[in-house]
C-alpha cells in the first residue's frame, strides 16, 4: 500500500529552485550549478523517501540541472573554435536559459503575492445586493433591455452572488471537527514500536488511508524523532526507512 500525501510547499521545480537560491544566498545571475543541483536532488530524494507525490516536472528539472552541470564541466574551447574576440562574447553560458526562466517566473510569483494582498484587502469590504426596484418601475414593465450578455457575464454574476456575504444570525453551533491529537498518535506509535521490540517499516506506520490521519501520524513521528524517542534508519537513498523505539533495555542502537 502506498499513501500519497501531496504537499504544496512548492508550486513546481522553478519555485523550489528559487527557494534554494534564496536560502543559499546565491546570486541568481551566477548560480553555482553543482551546489544547487546537489541541494535540489536532496530535496527530491527526501520527498521520495517519504513517499510523497512528486510531480514529473520536478524530475525533468533534475535532468536539466544535471545536463547543465555536465556542460559546465566541459573544457572551454572558445579559443580553438572562435578565433576572433567578438564571438567569444556570444559564447553561451549553459545556465542562461534557466536563469531567464527563473527571473521570469519570479516576476509572476511576486505579482501573485500582490494579488493575494489585494484579495485580503477587498475581503474587508462588504457590499449589499441591488435593491428590488420593482416599485419604481412603471407598472412592472419588463426591463427594456437587450440581451447583450455572454455566458461569462452570467457566471460572473453568479460568482458575485456566491461571494456576497450575507449578514445573518451568528451561527450558534458549529460542528467541531473531530481532531486526532498528535499527542495521542505519538503514544500509539511509541507503544506499537515498544511492543514490537524491533524496527518497523516507515510506511507501515500509516495504517489508514485517511488524509488527516496520515498528516497527524507524520507529525507525530517527527515529534518523536525530535524528542529522541524513536530512531530512523535508512541504508541509502531510495531505500526503505525503518523506525524503532529508542532505548528500552538495550542501549539505543545508533543510527548515525
Amino acid at each position, binding site marked *: 500500500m502506498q499513501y500519497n500525501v501531496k504537499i*504544496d510547499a512548492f508550486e513546481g521545480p522553478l519555485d523550489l529552485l528559487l527557494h534554494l537560491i534564496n536560502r543559499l544566498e546565491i546570486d541568481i545571475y551566477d548560480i553555482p550549478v553543482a551546489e544547487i543541483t546537489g541541494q535540489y536532488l536532496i530535496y527530491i530524494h527526501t520527498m521520495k523517501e517519504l513517499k510523497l507525490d512528486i510531480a514529473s516536472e520536478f524530475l525533468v528539472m533534475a535532468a536539466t540541472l544535471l545536463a547543465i552541470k555536465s556542460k559546465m564541466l566541459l573544457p572551454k574551447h572558445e579559443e580553438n573554435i572562435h578565433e576572433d574576440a567578438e564571438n567569444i562574447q556570444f559564447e553561451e553560458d549553459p545556465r542562461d536559459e534557466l536563469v531567464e526562466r527563473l527571473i521570469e517566473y519570479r516576476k509572476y510569483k511576486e505579482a501573485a503575492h500582490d494579488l493575494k494582498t489585494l484579495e485580503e484587502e477587498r475581503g474587508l469590504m462588504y457590499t449589499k445586493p441591488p435593491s428590488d426596484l420593482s416599485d419604481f*418601475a412603471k407598472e412592472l414593465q419588463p426591463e427594456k433591455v437587450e440581451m447583450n450578455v*455572454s*455566458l461569462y457575464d452570467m457566471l460572473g*454574476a453568479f460568482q458575485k452572488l456566491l461571494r456576497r456575504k450575507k449578514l445573518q444570525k451568528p451561527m450558534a453551533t458549529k460542528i467541531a471537527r473531530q481532531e486526532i491529537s498528535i499527542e495521542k498518535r505519538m503514544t500509539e506509535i511509541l507503544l506499537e514500536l515498544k511492543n514490537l521490540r524491533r524496527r518497523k517499516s516507515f510506511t507501515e506506520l500509516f495504517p489508514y488511508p485517511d488524509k488527516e490521519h496520515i498528516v497527524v501520524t507524520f*507529525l507525530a513521528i*517527527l515529534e518523536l524523532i525530535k524528542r529522541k524517542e524513536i530512531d530512523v534508519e535508512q541504508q541509502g537513498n531510495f531505500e526503505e526507512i525503518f523506525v524503532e523505539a529508542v532505548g528500552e533495555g538495550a542501549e539505543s542502537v545508533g543510527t548515525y
Partner: protein
Amino acid sequence: MKKFLSKQSGKGPNRLELIKWKSILESLLFAAGDEGLTLKQISEALEIEISIVESILEELKQEMDNDLNRGIIIVQLAGTYQLATKKENAPYLKKLVDSPGNTTLSQAALETLAIIAYRQPITRAEIEEIRGVKTERPLHTLMSKAMIKEAGRAEGTGRAYLYGTTKEFLDYFGLKSLDELPPLPDRVEEEYMQEEADLFFDKFQETFNS
C-alpha cells in the same frame, strides 16, 4: 472637527467609542441589506447592551433624517432595522430604472438566470432565499426574453411555480445542452484541500517551534 471630538473624549470610554459605534452600525445595517437586523443581533455584534444600541440607533436615525445631504434613512420593519432610500429621491430611482443606459441585462437578472440554470426546477421563494432580495422583476424580464419558463408546480401547500431554462436560453449562450454549462467550483473539495494543507503546516510549525 475630528480633533475636537477626540480631545473631548476624556471621561470614560463613551465619547470616542460612540463615534465609532455609529460608523459600525451604519456598516452593519448597510451590509444586512433588505433583511435588516434585530436589536439583539446588533447588540451581539457590538457587544453592548440593547438599551445603548437603541440610543445609538436613535441618534443615527436623527442624523440621517435631518441631514439634507444624506440619501438613506433607517426604517423599522417587522422587528428589524434596515436602511432605505429617502422617499423624496424616488423620482430619480424611477429614472434610473427606466434609463436607456441600462442596455444590458442587469446583474439581478443575470444572477437569477444563473440560479435557475444551475438549480432548476426552482421556485421563486427559493431563488429569493439565495439572493436575499425580492426577485419578481428579474423573473419578469427573463420570462419576457424567453430565457426561462414555468416548469410545473412545486409540491406542498403553496403549489408555487417552478422555473426552468428554455431552449432559447441554450441557443442564446451557444450550448447544446445543460450539461455544457461550465461546472461550478467544487467548493467543498477545494476547501478540504486547503484546510488539509493549512493543518499540515500549522501542525508542522507548532511541532518544531515549540
